[in-house]
């Protein structure tokens, strides 16, 4: 009886928290699928549309290069994901399993860059990117975005947990460092790879601050930059803005919900808990 009441109390609390969390998302969906006058027009409160319409989506697709922006986002975040997962795994192996002069100093330098907001270096970074001839290409966003130490940090934490005997055994069998990395460390790092891949996919899909500076041409925009541009063009057309916001959110949200178990499991094993 007491346990039952406990469950009810906990369920009530979590239901309230869940309701508060989902409400803004519900409101976005409701506004995206209704005419402007209906939900936002009058002074009185209306919480759902009488009639569902796709008009907002039609307007967005008719006036903006949605497909281009979408494929820009896909291309940029996939390349960022592949590059940053690879570089993080390689560096994580060195910092967790190899001994080399300067490792501590190098590790702390990488850690220090974690607290560096891009706005601090944006002026100088912009000059470098322009000087390298990258401005006006995807690479102006991709390369600076992959220059991060977060993945390195996670990879090192995770790989410190790999039993030393396995590494030593491979070394005694005459395996080189690359072979040890490929045959022993990588297969054991699957939960880590899931976390790294998803974290970099999520952050580059939603990245805003640097792409805002690096992408000036409409044809190169990613979805978040396109979203801000669209909002600037449409003014108070909230229906169109929310329709496009949904196009930005839904793909990554689906990936996230499908893989959340692996994500939690990967974090649980990465040694930062």
């Amino acid at each position, binding site marked *: 009886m007491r346990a039952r009441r406990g469950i009810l109390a906990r369920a009530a609390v979590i239901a309230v928290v869940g309701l508060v969390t989902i409400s803004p*998302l519900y409101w976005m969906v409701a506004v995206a699928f209704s005419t402007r006058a209906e939900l936002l027009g009058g002074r009185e409160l209306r919480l759902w549309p009488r009639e569902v319409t796709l008009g907002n989506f039609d307007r967005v697709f008719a006036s903006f290069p949605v497909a281009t922006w979408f494929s820009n986002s896909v291309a940029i975040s996939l390349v960022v994901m592949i590059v940053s997962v690879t570089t993080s795994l390689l560096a994580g192996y060195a910092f967790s399993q190899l001994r080399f002069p300067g*490792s501590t100093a190098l590790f702390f*330098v990488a850690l220090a860059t974690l*607290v560096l907001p891009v706005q601090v270096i944006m002026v*100088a970074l912009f000059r470098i990117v322009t000087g390298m001839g990258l401005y006006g290409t995807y690479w102006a966003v991709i390369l600076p975005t992959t220059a991060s130490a977060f993945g390195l940090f996670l990879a090192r934490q995770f790989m410190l947990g790999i039993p030393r005997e396995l590494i030593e055994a491979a070394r005694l069998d005459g395996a080189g460092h690359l072979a040890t990395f490929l045959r022993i460390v990588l297969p054991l790092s699957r939960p880590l790879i899931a976390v790294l891949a998803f974290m970099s996919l999520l952050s580059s899909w939603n990245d805003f601050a640097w792409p805002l500076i690096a992408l000036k041409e409409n044809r190169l925009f990613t979805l978040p930059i396109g979203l801000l541009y669209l909002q600037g063009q449409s003014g108070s057309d909230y229906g169109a803005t929310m329709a496009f916001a949904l196009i930005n959110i839904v793909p990554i949200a689906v990936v996230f919900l499908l893989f959340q178990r692996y994500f939690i499991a990967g974090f649980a094993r990465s040694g930062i808990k």
Partner: protein
Amino acid sequence: MPSPTPEFASRPAGDVRREDGRSGAARGRAGARPRRPGSRREALAAYGFIAPNYVLLLVFVLIPLAGALVVSLQRTDGFGAGEFAGLQNYARLWSDPLFWRALGNTVLFTLIVTPVSMAFGLVAATLLNTALPARPLFRSILILPMAVSGVATALIGVLVFDQNSGVLNKLLGAFGLPAVTWQSDAGPAFLSIVLVTVWWRTGFNMLIYLAGLQGIGPDLHEAARLDGANTLQRFRHVTVPLLGPTTFFLTVLNVIYSFQVFDIVFVLTGGGPAGATSVLVTYAYETGFVTRDQGYAAAIGMILFLFALLFAAAQWRASRTRDVVE
């Protein structure tokens, strides 16, 4: 796989082989780094492994950082070469009320958002770690905001908090409460960016706390229950202490993110009204790319970086002392 202790987790990279008997003995004898056959090759291999990551960091982070330091000593609009201005930009900061406002807002924002979103995350994770109906559904709902881009989050905020047509003021009105001036008054505007950010951030904290809770076996709770501890006492004396390393990790991450809050402020309030919600990163951005006072913008950025570094170092030290004490 053995679960790493906090001491283990905060160990610097050079010490990873502390439990390696050979190197421990060597260190004991000579007090220096052990030299083993092939260690030169090992070092070369290591540099090869870290090269891709560090070349990227060097070109796109460290060189620009050095560049920012140089620019912060110049007066420049970004076109042509700047002129050397010494520490003038830093001296200007001292008497710039907008800078102090942005600094104060950044600190206040961090001090509110970090503990609030972490507390919500911890409570939600603890609840979702017990027997509950529809648990996967609630977990999915709570982490959903994490997948929403900052721009979209802020635009949903614009929609909800609009003081004339926003649904929040209409809801308040339906309960007979007065409308809140979310855009025209400083306090409500600041509150709106705090609320939106807490909504956005709680899911991530919950997720990491859930991962941490998975590492706590049921036997400790069982033992505490047999000793007569009630639910609240078990939470206070079993769950919270065992989540210490998770809390440390999340504190550092949340403070870093809060110092860097940009999307939400830039899109939701633009720093307004009259600088009331301006933070250091938005102020640096406006100064550098809108008013194009790039030397001054770089100086603001360097101060911001210094603050963040000092904080991170303080956290690091605190965690190390705590590990020694425990």
